[in-house]
């Protein structure tokens, strides 16, 4: 138990740090995916099966892919020649450390930090389903709406505006992946690296 936890934490934190510190953006993205996977594993260890799998499905399966695509579309694929750390990095680090310190202080000073877990709760998936459909049905609807809006908005924002580049209407179809793919084809005619 402890060992597994230690391994998972080490993996997660290491890959998270790598994700924000590596030079090559694609590596960053991959490490990010790894960190997400580690987090999912932590969820599983905490007995939140559904959330864990959802985490993998959404983050590793979708968000990481999105990030990768964005990186390639913004030609971040090759390692940046210029320094990747912004000029005011000292201040940034300082702020981060400050926040960390404050958080730890808050945590350690809180009473329930040393609480032990109660006996494992029963399988929660069916329960989650019921709750989603009954108590949380309104938030669920809202989230559905949000996701739809986000899909449409994202595809419209990222779409090559039709007038300029893609005269044919069907390639500006209701899907970024389509436009996306074509754009890759355009942007990566020349071998990169």
């Amino acid at each position, binding site marked *: 138990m402890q060992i597994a936890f230690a391994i998972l934490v080490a993996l997660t934190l290491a890959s998270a740090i790598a994700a*924000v510190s590596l030079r090559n953006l694609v590596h960053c993205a991959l490490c990010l995916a790894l960190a997400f996977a580690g987090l999912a594993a932590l969820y599983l260890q905490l007995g939140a099966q559904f959330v864990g799998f959802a985490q993998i499905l959404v983050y590793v399966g979708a*968000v990481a892919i999105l990030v990768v695509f964005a990186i390639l579309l913004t030609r971040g694929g090759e390692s940046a020649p210029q320094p990747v750390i912004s000029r005011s990095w000292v201040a940034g680090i300082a702020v981060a450390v400050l926040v960390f310190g404050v958080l730890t202080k808050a945590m350690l000073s809180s009473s329930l930090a040393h*609480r*032990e877990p109660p006996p494992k709760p029963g399988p929660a998936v069916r329960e*989650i389903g019921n709750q989603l459909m009954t108590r949380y049905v309104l938030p669920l609807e809202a989230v559905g709406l949000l996701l739809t809006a*986000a899909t449409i908005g994202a595809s419209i924002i990222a779409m090559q505006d039709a007038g300029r580049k893609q005269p044919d209407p069907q390639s500006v179809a209701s899907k970024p992946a389509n436009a996306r793919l074509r754009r890759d084809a355009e942007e990566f005619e020349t071998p990169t690296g």
Partner: protein
Amino acid sequence: MIPLYYYLMVSAVLFSVGLAGALTRRNAILVLIGVELMLNAANLNFIAFWRYSPNPEAITGMMFVIFSIAIAAAEAAVGLALIIAIYRHCKTTNLERMDSLKG
């Protein structure tokens, strides 16, 4: 058995790592990655508190995480689309050169 504040520490570290990334990297996408990490740290907190709460039958924490995951996905999609649009507009993802809104 692992006490709660291990998880809290982990999430704190994760949060500050994300914050540091968001604060120090030049590339907009990296900033977004940092933000995602911060979000996940928060999620970890929720799950941990749910698991360690006196009655885990009340699955509010998990619910919260589920919704936040969904929202994070949407946020990532829109954010990345915005970054792409910005890149197409001014040919850079370097945040320090995107300061046309300065006073």
